[in-house]
């Protein structure tokens, strides 16, 4: 099984974010980490390789600092990496990112492409699905489990409200992987050492330029959401409070 895992580097979850001068993006001088959902996608890919042998390749697009995400993946056991390296990639919308990935892997023959559920910074949850359409491959999202079958794979899809569904799919396919389905493995010292010798293919912006276009959507402004909170005190005896509160729950908030 040849599996590609798309990974992203995002600002650390509790990093204090500051807007840049144009307020259309954040200042880049924060700490970064791997997008946690992508770590689960990588874990699933490594488990599939353990079950079925094959190759796990990781890819990311971003500035030089994003190479860290690839290094960590290689240290955990990925075989090789592809780095679309340029500052410009940070500003790409999901469509362009997917186009760039598709262009970078055009000479490869993957059986499966995994992405995380969504990114912790944008939270769009689109790149994997767009990539599937660009490649003309079937896809499924929010996947909990993958099994090999004669015709391809059988995946377990998560739906809302505690519902699930099995889906049979042919290969090659794109899957977006649910977070929390496995315990993430640790990189070992040996893994980190070996990672230094694993190949990272660098792909420049020029190489994929012809595949991408202008962004089809634009962040006009980024801002700190204002809280206009007026606290209403509910008073009286406990029974009075209970009645007043239930009245609000029913008629004002409509949760009863």
């Amino acid at each position, binding site marked *: 099984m040849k599996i590609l895992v798309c990974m992203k580097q995002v600002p650390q979850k*509790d*990093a*204090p974010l500051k807007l840049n001068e144009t307020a259309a993006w954040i200042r880049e001088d924060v700490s970064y980490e791997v997008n946690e959902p992508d770590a689960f996608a990588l874990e699933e890919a490594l488990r599939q390789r353990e079950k079925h042998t094959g190759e796990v390749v990781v890819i990311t697009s971003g500035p030089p600092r994003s190479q860290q995400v690839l290094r960590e993946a290689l240290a955990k056991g990925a075989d090789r990496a592809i780095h679309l390296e340029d500052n410009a990639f940070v500003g790409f919308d999901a469509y362009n990112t997917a186009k760039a990935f598709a262009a970078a892997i055009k000479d490869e023959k993957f059986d499966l492409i995994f992405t995380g559920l969504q990114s912790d910074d944008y939270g769009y949850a689109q790149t994997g699905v767009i990539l599937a359409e660009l490649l003309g491959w079937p896809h499924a999202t929010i996947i909990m489990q993958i099994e090999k079958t004669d015709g391809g794979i059988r995946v377990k899809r998560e739906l809302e409200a505690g519902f699930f569904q099995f889906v049979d799919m042919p290969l090659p396919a794109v899957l977006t992987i649910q977070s929390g389905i496995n315990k993430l493995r640790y990189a070992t010292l040996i893994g980190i050492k070996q990672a230094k010798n694993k190949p990272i293919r660098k792909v420049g912006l020029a190489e994929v330029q012809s595949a991408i276009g202008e962004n089809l959507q634009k962040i006009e402004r980024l801002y700190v959401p204002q809280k206009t909170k007026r606290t209403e005190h509910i008073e009286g005896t406990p029974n009075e409070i209970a009645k007043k509160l239930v009245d609000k729950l029913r008629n004002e908030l409509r949760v009863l």
Partner: protein
Amino acid sequence: MLIFRKPIEGVERPQMPADVVIVGGGPAGMACALRLSQLIAAHNAAHPDSPLSKENIYVLEKAREIGQHCLSGALLDPRSMRELLPGFEKEAPLDAEVTKEAVYFLTEKSKFKLPITPPPLRDHGNHVISLNRFVKWLGGKVEETGITIFTGFAGSELLFDGDRVTGVRTDDKGVDKEGHQKSNFEPGYDLNAKIVILAEGPRGSLTKQLINKFDLAKNANPQTYGVGMKELWEVPSGRIAPGEVIYTMGWPLTTKEYGGAWIYGGKDNVVSLGFVTGLDYPDPRLDPQHVLQDFKKHPLVAKLLEGGKMIRYGAKSMPYGGWWAIPPVAGNGWMILGDAAGFLNSARLKGIHLAIKSGMLAAETAFEALKKDDASAAMLGEFQKKVEASWIKDELWKVRNMHQGFEHGFYAGMFHTALQMVTGGRGLRNRYPARAGYEQMRKLADLPADGGAEAHLLGPAKGDGKLTFDKLTDLYHSGTKHEEDQPSHLVIDDTNICNTRCVKEFGSPCQNFCPANVYEMVDDATQPNGKRISLNPSNCVHCKTCDIADPYQIITWVPPEGGGGPNYDGM
């Protein structure tokens, strides 16, 4: 039931050979790695037929990222950096060169500026830096040379063979709260090294193991410490110039406590401020984080911070003991650097430049040892000699009795300091004795119930949420995070002492001296005093204060699972 962290027994550990393992990726460890790299590169250029390898030289850093656990004011004396990397000023991240200093003596409402800045505190030529950023940059340079820095890996215990240190065991990963292996368990590696260099910072856990095992401190003064509590603030522009340095003494401390504050103007309107409290104060109810909050209420500081925003909080201990408290720094297979050894100038309040120099000297020693394939005590003992022949000794010798002079209060301390200044550090005798800080903590029964003159320093700070903060709010801004499901890394020898004796004798000072709310006494009707010790280990900011200050000395801090800890971005 509290389960404490210890290396899992009966599990096969991967073995990895190493030439040098440097435990700790702070300024000392990184300077050591970089210098060693330089020496090897020069050697290999001159002897292409007999090259030395960098492949088996490792730095172990417990933080997830280089520099993430580094915290200091900080002011960098560039002396050693200029030796290590001439011209470093052009590429290192330096906030500002110091332009003016002022030293104040504070009372609750007013301030007296010292007409002359005492020579040790004259900082012209020094740089205001963020140690975290500086170490990140320095670490980058180390990685460029090909030395591997393992981030997210802690040294959990030393490996011995008789009197020889044979290596370092790294932390077990994937162990749950009860001490059992989780499905992603990875045993710590045994790094079997020719030379182990301990650069863990103040009160290093492996350093403590080593000192205890070989009774290394028997001829030295007990090491004494302070704890620095720091906040990073963004203030409206114009309040303080980049490179402006302010030191304060006096309020909110009384004559019974040792300590003082710093305020440094950084760039982009960021101010670094903090309060260092000596961990030898008498009243166990004293809360050093409360001291910092009180300090900010002084008009001098309140005016500076008004309208500003606190963006980071952190705490770290620092060794005050000086020259006489430094144990032997080299032995059979080992060396100790930087704050772990106690190379800090408590008069100048600086240690980074000494840490870097010690790293360089250790690297030179290690280089010779590698060439001769001899890491014996005699060979590595050259490090001890180098230190004694270097400006590290020159500098520290002059202030060798500084902190001890304050053991009997502020005025006595000032007298001794003045005397030491005119006698090349001697003062009344060549070597002043010292008492460990925890021995100076007094029992509640011997103290006024209401705290007396110290009352305003005791107990937790409430905080107004704008200028001052309660501990939990401050703690949030340290960014500290750990894997929740793991055994407690604060190892308490006997929790019965906490529940039966300490509650009554000292009133559970752990709740006060810990800057991170790790320790709490919770109600428990089954206990004789109705209270039981409860821990929140994942709050820990790795300052080591508990290991230092606990009056019964039953707390041992060991590294939690690697990768966890504070996030001192910009600190």
